[in-house]
């Protein structure tokens, strides 16, 4: 909390001063005390959830987690059931975990790559209608993805036809091939925000840098790869983490485009089924929540450095 990482090198000096001022104010004693109180308050429910996940079923169902302190009983039964409990319809959690990874990684890399290309073109390749396109992409962020679900689904299952003329055939994917639909959907939904974020970042880069590279004979490809990409690494990481968490936690898009079978459904779908038809097994949910939390937590902790840097750089942009 006390050490705010230095802002990215490309940020203007004014912004750096502002960041320093904020840093100084946040490291005071009173601020630290407040921060600790907030941290404790915000961690308590998570701690309660964690404690719950370790309590026996009948205890979870009859008393609150705080009664643990008067009657401590711990068991790993919930975790055993969640991780290794087999069900012929859905298999083990591990299978869904792999599905989740298979869905998430391309769904992060595709938008990351496309958004970076688009943002570069919109920021540094002069062409007619550039601003119009940028505003259009920016405006797309307002469209809720729920509106696009049905059209996108019929695009996959019926193709595109205008006045009876079939312009694009249906995808007709089955089984594991349905992953492609989920990747496609997540990429579509992520692009507006990705382009917006990376464009903001790229257009902040000093023009001299790009010009110097061009004088040295570099084309757009080289400039993008050698100059721009290394400089916007924090922004890429920020967007990557956002997108990762969003896709990992997503249930809606996966339910519609991946279906609920063990061939292609991610872990969130399994978690939602796990409580049983009438919610009579809800004691499994606490343990399930923690199992699903492990990977995002690891990703976040290992990339946290970039995350804070990227956020700050975006935040103090004037």
């Amino acid at each position, binding site marked *: 909390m006390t050490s705010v990482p230095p802002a990215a090198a490309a940020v203007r000096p004014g912004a750096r001063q502002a960041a320093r001022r904020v840093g100084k104010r946040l490291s005071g004693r009173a601020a630290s005390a407040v921060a600790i109180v907030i941290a404790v308050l915000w961690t308590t429910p998570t701690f309660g959830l964690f404690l719950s996940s370790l309590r026996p*079923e*009948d205890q979870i*169902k*009859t008393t609150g987690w705080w009664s643990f302190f008067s009657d401590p009983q711990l068991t790993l039964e919930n975790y055993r059931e969640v991780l*290794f*409990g*087999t*069900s*012929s*319809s*859905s298999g083990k959690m591990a299978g869904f975990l792999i599905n989740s990874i298979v869905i998430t990684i391309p769904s992060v890399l595709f938008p990351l790559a496309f958004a970076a290309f688009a943002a570069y073109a919109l920021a540094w390749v002069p062409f007619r209608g550039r601003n119009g396109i940028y505003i259009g992409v920016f405006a797309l962020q307002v469209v809720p993805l729920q509106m696009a*679900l*049905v*059209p*996108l*689904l*019929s695009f*996959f*299952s*019926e193709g595109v036809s205008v006045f009876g003329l079939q312009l694009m055939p249906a995808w007709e994917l089955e089984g594991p091939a349905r992953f492609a639909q989920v990747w496609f959907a997540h990429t579509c939904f992520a692009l507006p925000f990705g382009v917006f974020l990376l464009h903001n970042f790229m257009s902040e880069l000093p023009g001299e840098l790009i010009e110097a590279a061009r004088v040295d004979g570099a084309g757009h490809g080289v400039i993008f790869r050698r100059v721009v990409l290394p400089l916007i690494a924090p922004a890429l990481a920020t967007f990557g983490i956002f997108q990762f968490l969003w896709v990992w936690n997503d249930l809606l898009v996966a*339910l*519609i485009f991946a*279906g*609920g*079978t063990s061939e292609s459904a991610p872990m969130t*779908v399994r978690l*939602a*089924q*796990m*409580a*049983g*038809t*009438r*919610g*009579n*097994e*809800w004691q499994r949910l606490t343990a399930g929540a923690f199992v699903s939390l492990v990977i995002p937590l690891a990703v976040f902790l290992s990339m946290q450095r970039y995350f804070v840097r990227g956020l700050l750089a975006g935040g103090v942009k004037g």
Partner: protein
Amino acid sequence: MSLLSRPARTALVAGTAGLALVAAGCGSSEPSAPAAGGGTSAACAPFEKFGKHDGKKVSVYSSIRDTEADLFQQTWMPFEKCTGMKITYEGAGEFEAQIQVRSDGGNPPDLAFFPQPGLLQRFVAAGRLKPAPAEVKRLAEQNWSPDWAKYGTVDGTFYAAPLGASVKSFVWYSPGMFKEKGWAVPKTWDELMTLTDTIAGTGVKPWCAGIESGEATGWPATDWIEDVLLRELGPEGYDDWVAHKIPFNAPEVVAAVDKVGAILKNERFVNGGYGPVKSIAGTAFQEGGVPITEGRCALHRQASFYANFWPEGTTVAEDGDVFAFYLPGNDPAEKPVLGAGEFVGAFTDRPEVQAVQAYLATGDHANARMKLGTYVSANKGVDIANAQNPIDRLSIEMLHDPDTVFRFDGSDLMPAAVGAGTFWKGMTDWINGKDTTTVLDFIEASWPAS
């Protein structure tokens, strides 16, 4: 021990079925098939009438998931093996919303198990569902009472055969407690109220209830109202009320709701084990009846499926820790039963889909499913001897009784804005202290105009 052996057993079953599938696959492609398949053909004899559908796939979508879904899939295994088709099953808690999205997006499943006839009707009205083939219609007429078949029929055309069922008109109690205190199971509503009063006199709050259920909070209270309305208005009156021919705030409805209020809103009678009346709204329905096992409550009105919610180690039997009796009406001679169930609707009419539809409507399917675990069906082909526990047996006896008049849970038949919206919310407000007329006026005003 039993927990450890369960996955192993499932794996064994799956493995055996897989082997058999391979064997069947090899057999059909080779000329020496009859000799090799001699053993299986006897097992396959009951499935011959459904034909051969080698390599065909049928997708099934429903709101049944986890353990119950596994049991269905195990039930289908011999059918799949013998007909050569593959049934892909998918269960989701978001069934009601998802089925709409999938159907709109041109990607519906082949078959869907609709838990609400109202939703089924909406899909029929939109022209999405195929009418049931003649064979399914014949099986449904043969296996289900007209009360049931009616709910799968829209505008005179039969669309969906019923599948499972649950009986809602039950009051759970502790046989041990009743025996010890010398209480008898009431046969009429008056006896029930006298018993309630007697129990309250002993210092125990007689009834316990819980209506919290996430976004569906309030539904257990609507079941209460429906059960009493069915007794007060009679089956025809109940149908009129569901169809909104009797307004929600009509005097007879007010009277019925107040009759429930005499129990649920009386501080002397509720909420055993939990506290005052208002604690009903905050108690999860899954836990509503649990105080019975602790002796802090005597009666809990909830459906037959509540058998799954008792704490581990509770015996559900006539002479066990808990059991249920029929929620009595004014006249012991009349036995209207409130219940719910699923209906198998078809979005496509390929031969293999119709074969599955026909199989699901047979008594064989219901019996096979019952042998695997707790299950209730109103199918007349069901052999009561296959019931896995006393409460299933009691439910099936009630459903099979020719004197029983069956009515479906009204909130599943009404427009969703009311049945899955204001009715739930209104009853929650009612528990929380609003008076009957205000609540019923509110629900009446929310009924869609068209």
